[in-house]
């Protein structure tokens, strides 16, 4: 009797832990199932165009190029801002700050990660949008740059938190050896500690980019959502996530537009999945993740 119960419990727990795999498989299955018919009619080639006009009266057009470049532009700018800021702050917190200062700084910066993205988007709308507008003398502050600034804010806590863990897990014998050889504290940080923690820092950046590219609400609120192919940071862009969020609610079930949006989601999922695998590879060295 007892033996049966033990077995049943184990099986139940095994079932519960399999739900994660099940959900992932269901997500992939469902996205593919809804996207696939589009490949037959009107065909995948219609996704490659540079005009996204899914509701045009004259001729519907599903070129996802402007959405890809929109996401790419915003993500690239956010990453360029967030990497130096995040890594430098991680260095300060882990190597330079006094212990008491560190105890306050880390949780305080992690508060930023806890703020809902819609709150950050709202803050961007009332503070950053007018700021960008007046600094660059534009007719509207709803630009790719505004979105990138907000996204950088959202990636920074991820980068700081994981980089800081990686930097502080560098054995102190490395640093002591460097200092004993006459290197200054700064030389030790930049030539010994940071290189030794590099794979953790790379992982933090990859996870940060993953968060940025999948972020929806903040970009939807501040980038202006014009689907144009551009690399100009001061114009309005429309990202993949914002397109799904803005259009899925009004689309006719099963229409070409509906299926095109699922292709956008599938591409998005593919990108984040690849980034996640990369980050896990880099982190496995530390066994942090």
């Amino acid at each position: 009797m007892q033996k049966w119960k033990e077995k049943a419990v184990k099986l139940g727990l095994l079932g519960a832990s399999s739900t994660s795999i099940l959900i992932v498989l269901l997500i992939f299955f469902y996205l593919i199932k809804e996207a696939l018919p589009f490949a037959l009619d009107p065909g995948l080639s219609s996704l490659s165009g540079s005009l996204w006009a899914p509701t045009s009266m004259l001729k519907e057009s599903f070129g996802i190029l402007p959405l890809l470049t929109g996401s790419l532009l915003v993500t690239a700018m956010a990453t360029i801002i967030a990497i130096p800021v995040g890594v430098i702050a991680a260095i300060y917190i882990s190597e330079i700050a006094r212990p008491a200062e560190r105890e306050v700084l880390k949780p305080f910066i992690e508060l930023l990660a806890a703020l809902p993205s819609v709150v950050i988007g709202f803050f961007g709308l009332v503070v950053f949008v007018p700021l960008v507008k007046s600094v660059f003398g534009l007719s509207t502050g709803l630009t790719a740059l505004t979105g990138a600034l907000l996204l950088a804010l959202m990636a920074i806590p991820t980068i700081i938190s994981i980089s800081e863990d990686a930097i502080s897990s560098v054995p102190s014998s490395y640093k002591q050896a460097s200092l004993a050889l006459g290197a200054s504290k700064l030389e030790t940080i930049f030539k010994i500690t940071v290189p030794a923690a590099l794979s953790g820092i790379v992982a933090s950046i990859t996870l940060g980019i993953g968060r940025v590219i999948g972020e929806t609400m903040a970009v939807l609120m501040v980038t202006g959502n014009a689907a144009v192919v551009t690399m100009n940071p001061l114009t309005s862009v429309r990202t993949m996530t914002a397109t799904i969020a803005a259009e899925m609610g009004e689309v006719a079930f099963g229409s070409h537009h509906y299926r095109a949006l699922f292709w956008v989601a599938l591409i998005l999922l593919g990108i984040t999945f690849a980034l996640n695998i990369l980050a896990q590879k880099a982190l496995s060295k530390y066994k942090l993740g």
Partner: protein
Amino acid sequence: MAKKKTEKIVYGVIWFVTYLVVFMVGYIIFDIVIKGLPAISWGFLTQMPAKSGSQGGILPAIVGTFYLVIGTVAIALPLGIASAIYLNEYSKPSTFTRMIRLGISTLAGVPSIVFGLFGMGLFVLALGFGKSILAGSLTLACMVLPTIIVASEEALKAVPDSMREGSLALGATKWQTIYKNVLPYALPGMLTGSILGIGRAAGETAPIIFTVAATLLPRLPRSIFDQVMALPYHLYMLATQMPNQTTIKPMQYGTAFVLLVIVLGVDVVAIIFRSRLRRKNKW
């Protein structure tokens, strides 16, 4: 001497960059508290919205978010804790275990809007729950599951092996040991860790747009198959649909403030609870 001067400048730059981040965090919170607090009144918290949300209160959005959080916890917590028990207590290194771990980390990286699409497809349409509290809670539960599993596993790892060995040596079975001698010590840690993930569920917008959120529904929900308003989506509507009316500003800031208080309040409670726990459970 020149070297010393450059070092000083480098230190200065590092300090400045770090405190710039701190300043931004402080500025966001300060701005919302200072401008949101005056908008809070008894009426704002307890009245129905009027004139498409530009007047009146936000009661249905508060209640809606509350229901969604309860629903998410009820689904994700048992599932997450059971997964963590299996992974930490039963699983052996195998391909299947690696698959589960890969599944969890993949799930943690799925963009929130994709969860929204998935929830719409599976729960709203295929299972026929419609736009409802049930569909929204299930979607949010999928999203917070990885956080809860990771937090619960940490709590289980913190229970020393001697607790397990002592119980097993006295003839208890594996499950009796886990149930009587491991879980009671790990449970508070599991709960606090999980609360941090649940705070995220309260603030998410993208997963609920297609699965539960109503733009304007000035009544309270009647069942789990009812749509509800939710604070994050309400803030999104207020911020983007009528941004240029000056009278709407207090409504926006008030809603942002209430959302912030709920999300950060939940986190602060969890953190205080955890630090108390650490002092109590010393072995």
